[in-house]
């Protein structure tokens, strides 16, 4: 990899230019989320004291402030509440336009924004079912003592249920 205009950065990783989160335990205490994702599971943390299930997952419960949290599975299918297609301004790393965005209802758990992949423009509409889709993203070259270890990474989007 070369970085035009900044020759000294050739081959260097820059965390501030990374699209995706850190997923190693050295850099993220909720790293199990990504391990579970690798198994096709969408999870969050549940508070053992007050039963709240905040999303995104937490180290501390935002309701009762307990740090007594456990991992729980959430549904991996959802219903589309609204969908729109971004034609102009799609950020680098998210493929060719259109980038399909949907607000989904995760079987009553939460409504949130997701990227829709494996879907043709104009195909998806409100009320349609979608399911979790996990894919590999670039690994992070992480310094471990004198070694550089490649940390594999995954991320998720949703795709139409066909």
């Amino acid at each position, binding site marked *: 990899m070369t970085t035009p205009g900044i020759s000294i950065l050739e081959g260097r990783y820059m965390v501030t230019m990374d699209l995706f989160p850190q997923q190693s335990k050295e850099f993220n205490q909720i790293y199990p989320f990504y391990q579970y994702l690798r198994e096709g599971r969408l999870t969050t943390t549940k508070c053992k004291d007050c039963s709240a299930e905040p999303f995104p997952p937490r180290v501390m419960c935002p309701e009762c402030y307990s740090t007594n949290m456990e991992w729980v599975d959430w549904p991996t299918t959802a219903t589309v509440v609204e969908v729109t297609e*971004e034609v*102009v301004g799609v950020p680098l790393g998210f493929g060719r336009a259109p980038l399909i965005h949907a*607000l989904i209802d995760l079987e009553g758990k939460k*409504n949130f*924004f997701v990227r829709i992949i494996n879907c043709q423009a104009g195909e998806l509409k409100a009320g349609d079912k979608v399911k979790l889709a996990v894919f590999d993203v670039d690994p992070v070259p992480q310094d471990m003592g004198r070694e550089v270890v490649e940390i594999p990474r995954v991320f998720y989007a949703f795709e139409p249920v066909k």
Partner: protein
Amino acid sequence: MERNVCVIAGGMSKWGVREGSQRDFFQEAAKACYNDNPQLNPKDIDGLLVASAYTERTSYQTHLAPLVAEYAGIKPKNICARVELLCASGSSAIILGYSMIKSGQADIVMIAGGEKLYTPQKWEVFYSELASVDHDWDGAQGLGLPPPVFAMVAKQHMKQFGTKKEHLARISVKNRRNSATNPQAQFQKPVTMEEVMGAKMIVEPLTLFDCCPITDGAAAVVLAVEEKAKTMTDKPLVYIRGTAQASVNNMSANMPTWTTWEALKIAAAQAYRKSKIEAKDVDVAMTHDCFTISEIIEMEDLGFCKKGEGGSFVADGQNDLGGRVPTNTDGGLLGCGHPFGGTGIRQGIEVMKQLRGDATQQVPGAKIGLTHNLSGFIAAHTVLIYGREAA
């Protein structure tokens, strides 16, 4: 004794796709601010708050406030720091400057805000915007500074309340007509209803003129304690009457409702209460028209019209010159552009001029002015009330 706070000077650089650097624009804004009030001696400024959101990303510069102080030719002795709340950075800094003066921690504070957003390669702007929402969650789903979020809001508002694309278009036409009278604005040419309705798609249902642009530029105001303000200007005094800022969520999963903005209702209620006014008392408003649908919802949630009636309120000209509450008389974000840290300050300058009586498009007899910013994933709302008299 109660310390009242006045705005005694304000000015901005030319906004747009600019040649120059962030520090160039801060100097231009400071100069314009000094020119606005020749009685102000910049050496008397005892505090500086600088509002800038992308300074680290697009100018590779942290610790910005002392740099701006050096370039603006001032030597603050009570505060010299940067404030960041993305699109509301400028208003946040005004609130903090006001609070410092109110509490006696400073007497004369400059608030300067701005950005150099255009980079030598344009892709980086959109890429950097992924940092503006919850980067690890919404950002990694491809949401930047997000037309898609507001497209989703618009779709739901249309479905729920019958708001039409024509209502959105009215906002573009009004604000671009207003910006054409403002030489500092990014857009100097008005647009017609036909041009807006026929414009290219960005994110359905939002087309080109529904979206504010990416902008370089800066703006600055000077606040002063009333006793000193009286000796430092011949123009009518403009007071900050009350302020509020509220946040109830950040990530999309925690947005309570999409078409009613709870944090805006909270911030508005707080600001009205502290200012001892009601929504009906507002004579002129600068609201955050980052997208046309935003201004419609803001009319509702600021209490200028009933919920769901924002579209017809706008279509009836109720937030245009001569209407119930003329809004974005200087062109707003849609016309002036939006260098994040500069916007709240630009709004403050226009309200200051309206209340002094020397605005380009003067609202006759304006006594109470309001500014509003939303920021991030509609995640925080900031409301300031200005008046010809203290609260």
